[in-house]
């Protein structure tokens, strides 16, 4: 019975019965997921899935290539945002209630303590995995031709992650928060040291401006908490999401993850791919159409998957879903057993001793303990610029997609690793035992200490070393590897020194048990 002759009622009932299929069809926009074409369609037409291509290279699905670092960082960001939003229900950013509201979250709100822990550890986890992700991208030289700017976007994301974490632990308004604000604001204000030396502070007090913008006054107080809350909850996340978008879009435009030039699927790959459902039939694949795919190679490939790729559905989707659940389980279990710290209520009269930032800023705190401006602003900015320029200074196209490029890469990395440990530990031991310029010549002008301090010496040494490697190996890639390895080593060593070996008054102690009780 054609449509027109049916009575109104029949039409209505018919639609009612068929609502399941019609709705599903409209929602999934694809019919049965058997043929390649429908599997590709599912990827392309779905709003969430279309962030990945219809087909994925086999190398991408090898866990040992990327270890899923970028993905885990993304998922951690998701969990941080979700738990963050939930916390916003109970947290109130006014001076009087901030601390009490956090206490209420941890004590009374159902699952409150767990959500707060998840928010904290997801945030800090992001730092860990973003650093690993950067290291992976670097060591597989995935910043070469075409992907340079994406590396720079990555650096911006790294900085945003750090600042988001920093603004995060200021919100509970406990002792750690208050003194971190005081120190953070004064680091922001430390350019005043330079403008003082140049004598132009009266006209152009850049440090003072930054400090004022952050604190809303000269001392952390009523105006500071709402500002930090605005930065942490609205301003920074939005910027981070924008840059994330750019980051993913560029990864896709640059053709997905990098892959080694000569790539052959190894038997081990079988484990990471979905088995073809189609058991028999002429074509080994489910190809039912003559879709001409864009092939990069010179010879036309017939009946062979183009460029060692497989359909994203279900391979990549399974992989990503598995990593999602792995990350969620990881954060969840960690948060169940380890509580986010919450110190005493902020007390502007009694600083903590030692006043230690969370672990990821202790490397910086060690540098800051030599000179506020140099350790706090100049050296970190220099490091970030140095990192950002790597893709523009090392443009050798070979060995993309191979860890450490080649055997020489591995040896340079190892060499730099050992030299970095020896030199930095030596430098720190010297500073701890014999002090620095100020202890030898008390009347030395401050500008000398700003310019010549363990921080600047170390950065100078790292740069000299990588230039030396470039001269020796005649390859900018090797120089980059040396530089990056030393950056990672110094981050780790300075963080360890700051965490384990520094005690009250930032003095040197071999172990926490030696700290004098005060």
């Amino acid at each position, binding site marked *: 019975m054609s449509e027109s002759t049916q009575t109104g009622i029949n039409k209505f009932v018919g639609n009612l019965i068929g609502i399941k299929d019609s709705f599903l069809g409209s929602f999934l926009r694809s019919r049965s997921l058997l043929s390649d074409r429908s599997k590709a369609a599912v990827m392309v037409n779905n709003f969430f899935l279309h962030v990945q291509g219809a087909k994925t290279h086999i190398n991408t699905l090898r866990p040992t290539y990327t270890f899923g670092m970028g993905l885990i960082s993304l998922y951690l960001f998701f969990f941080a945002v979700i738990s963050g939003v939930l916390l916003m229900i109970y947290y109130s950013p006014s001076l009087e209630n901030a601390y009490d509201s956090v206490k209420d979250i941890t004590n009374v709100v159902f699952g409150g303590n767990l959500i707060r822990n998840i928010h904290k550890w997801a945030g800090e986890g992001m730092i860990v995995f973003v650093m690993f992700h950067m290291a992976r991208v670097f060591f597989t030289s995935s910043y070469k031709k075409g992907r340079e700017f994406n590396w720079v976007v990555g650096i911006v994301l790294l900085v945003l992650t750090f600042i988001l974490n920093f603004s995060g632990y200021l919100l509970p308004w406990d002792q750690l928060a208050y003194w971190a604000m005081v120190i953070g604001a004064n680091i922001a204000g430390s350019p005043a040291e330079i403008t003082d030396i140049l004598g132009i502070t009266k006209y152009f007090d850049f440090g003072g401006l930054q400090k004022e913008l952050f604190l809303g006054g000269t001392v952390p107080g009523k105006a500071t908490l709402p500002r930090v809350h605005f930065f942490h909850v609205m301003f920074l996340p939005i910027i981070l999401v924008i840059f994330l978008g750019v980051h993913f879009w560029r990864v896709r435009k640059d053709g997905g993850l990098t892959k080694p030039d000569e790539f052959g699927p190894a038997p081990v790959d079988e484990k990471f791919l979905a088995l073809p459902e189609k058991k028999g039939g002429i074509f080994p694949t489910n190809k039912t159409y003559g879709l001409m795919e864009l092939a990069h190679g010179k010879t036309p490939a017939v009946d062979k998957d183009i460029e060692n790729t497989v359909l994203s559905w279900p391979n990549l989707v399974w992989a990503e879903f598995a990593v999602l659940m792995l990350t969620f389980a990881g954060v969840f279990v960690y948060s169940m057993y380890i509580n986010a710290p919450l110190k005493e209520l902020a007390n502007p009269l009694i600083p903590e001793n030692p006043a230690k930032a969370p672990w990821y800023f202790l490397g910086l705190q060690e540098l800051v303990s*030599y000179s506020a401006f140099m350790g706090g602003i100049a050296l970190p900015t220099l490091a970030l610029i140095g990192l950002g320029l790597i893709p523009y200074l090392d443009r050798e196209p070979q060995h993309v997609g191979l860890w450490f490029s080649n055997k020489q890469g591995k040896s340079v990395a190892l060499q730099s690793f050992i030299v970095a440990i020896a030199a930095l530990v030596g430098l720190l031991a010297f500073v701890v035992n014999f002090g620095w310029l100020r202890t030898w010549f008390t009347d030395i002008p401050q500008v000398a200490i700003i310019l010549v301090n363990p921080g600047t010496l170390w950065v100078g040494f790292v740069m000299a070393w990588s230039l030396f490697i470039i001269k020796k190996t005649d390859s900018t890639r090797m120089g980059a590897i040396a530089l990056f390895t030393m950056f990672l080593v110094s981050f780790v060593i300075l963080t360890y020194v700051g965490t384990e070996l520094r005690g009250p008054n*930032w003095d040197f102690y071999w172990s926490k048990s030696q700290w004098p009780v005060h």
Partner: protein
Amino acid sequence: MNNNACCAHKDPHKKEPEGVSRRDFLGLAGIGVAIAASFTAIAGIFRMTKATVHYEESRKFKIGMPAEFPVGTIKKLDDKKVFVFADTEGLYAISCICTHLGCIVSPTEWGFQCPCHGSKYNKDGKVIGGPAPRPLPWLEVSLHEDGNLVVDAAKEVKKGTKFTV
């Protein structure tokens, strides 16, 4: 500019001055003003974030009558973050906010020690160790008309200036 602008073709032969045509001028002016407007807006936004009023107690405060500070007193006014000393030459106040990154220094037998990054000062506030860029500022001590001693934490004086009652 030729006057019948609406439909006349530009006469190629007549040498007109190499100026900006009306349409270009309008376009340029439009863009220029748009940029100016957006910059003003942005400047306004930034100016808005600069707090005009600070919720902080005034940094000039009374610390009590001179007699409360006989010779030999060493007093730390906790909530004002100032040390007040009285010796035979007179009264003087040293700020206890570390010039490095703003922590509160604590007194020791050889001077002052900052708990945050290890800056060390001698008894006069001169830096003798650690990253502090400037000595602890000496603050101006004066006498209020009602006889109370007043310390102005915003006004730094030369080291060694002592206020005699």
